[in-house]
């Protein structure tokens, strides 16, 4: 039997609903966001032994926000979906003009990081569209998953430690978590500015900061909101929001998915087609490009 047979025992894979029912419909993210904020005010979540809300378990998302933060149609290359941006209210990502031009250039020249088996960044890891497992102790919140491309994981300390030194830059950044009431708040700094934030070439620099908020709104639904703040690229902070729905498939488990196992032929094909790995952008480079854009003659 080939390698696939050794991955794991078969998991039940019947048709029908693969997520549990939710108190808030999640087909429209703005509507879900408003409903979830109201539901969270009255829902008393199940708790762990230490008294904090219990976010653990297997979770799924029903949309592919990594394709495009803004509404986009279903095509042979996209699953499609509505805006995931809930602030600003128009659902648009508030790109600076030079950055929007750069975004279009990025999309035409460079591969999305996942194509090269590279990591997606802290928040970027959270809006893939497959299976997630959240694990929780008093001192750590952990994220693993399958179908998230480069088999990423996140280890979020909850013990009040400060961020790591400013000179350290990481693909996944440095996440630090804390509880605000029933909401887990994760602040991530120290990212390296190498991944895109979506497949339309949107980007950030190493000075970006993201704030994620995870809140149970019923036993089987989690409200997720992530605020991206990078004044080098965006005109203002913006927030995306969506639902995590509790997995309803019996026997779910995260399987090994070694992205590097066989990606070289694909990479050769991408290179032959003129695409290259996105090199990232520093804050200094972003400011330089912005100044050059603003200095252009009309």
């Amino acid at each position, binding site marked *: 039997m080939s*390698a696939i047979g050794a991955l794991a025992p078969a998991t039940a894979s019947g048709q029908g609903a693969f997520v549990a029912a939710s108190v808030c419909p999640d087909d429209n993210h703005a509507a879900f966001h408003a409903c979830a904020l109201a539901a969270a005010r009255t829902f008393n979540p199940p708790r762990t032994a230490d008294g904090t809300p219990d976010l653990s378990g297997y979770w799924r998302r029903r949309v592919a926000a990594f394709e495009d933060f803004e509404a986009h149609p279903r095509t*042979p290359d996209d699953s499609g979906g509505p805006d995931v941006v809930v602030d600003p209210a128009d659902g648009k990502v508030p790109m600076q003009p030079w950055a929007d031009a750069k975004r279009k250039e990025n999309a035409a020249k460079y591969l999305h990081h996942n194509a090269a088996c590279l990591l997606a960044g802290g928040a970027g890891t959270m809006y893939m569209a497959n299976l997630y497992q959240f694990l929780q102790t008093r001192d750590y919140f952990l994220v693993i998953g399958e179908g998230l491309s480069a088999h990423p994981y996140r280890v979020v300390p909850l013990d009040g430690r400060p961020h790591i030194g400013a000179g350290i830059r990481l693909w996944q950044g440095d996440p630090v978590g804390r509880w605000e009431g029933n909401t887990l708040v994760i602040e991530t700094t120290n990212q390296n500015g190498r991944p895109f934030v979506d497949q339309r070439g949107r980007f950030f620099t190493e000075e970006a900061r993201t704030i994620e908020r995870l809140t149970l709104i019923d036993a089987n639904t989690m409200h997720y909101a992530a605020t991206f703040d990078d004044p080098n690229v965006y005109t203002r902070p913006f927030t995306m929001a969506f639902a995590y729905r509790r997995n309803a498939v019996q026997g779910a488990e995260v*399987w090994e998915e070694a992205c590097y196992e066989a990606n070289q*032929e694909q990479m050769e094909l991408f290179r032959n087609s003129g695409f290259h790995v996105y090199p990232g952008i520093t804050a200094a480079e972003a400011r330089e490009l912005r100044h050059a854009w603003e200095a252009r003659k009309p």
Partner: protein
Amino acid sequence: MKSFVTAFVTLVCAFPALAHHSVAAGFDMDKTTTVVGTITKMEWRNPHARLSIQVKNEQAALETWEVWFSSANGLYRRGWRDDDLPIGATVTVTGFRARDGSRQLYGGGETKLPDGRVLFGGDNPEERR
């Protein structure tokens, strides 16, 4: 063995989406190509499984085509199993051809098995279990 290779412009989006990453960077998604061939090898790998088939071209010469699919994990979760694709079996694969002109397809459409069953090769998260 019947040949062969046919291509046509995609008029309607009938396939499950493939947006694990931008497949369009390597494959021309404006048209589909259908290949009929005999299996010589199936590699269950991540991030993309690969099927090798021999296809008879219009000059009756045999050509090797490589067909890329979703991840091995994804195929398994969709119901594909090792013995679905035995060496020597004839399969019909519809997908998107490589932009560089090489004989490679992304099998995002249908793969028809010898017994008539049809399996999807795409990466639609709604269909992943």
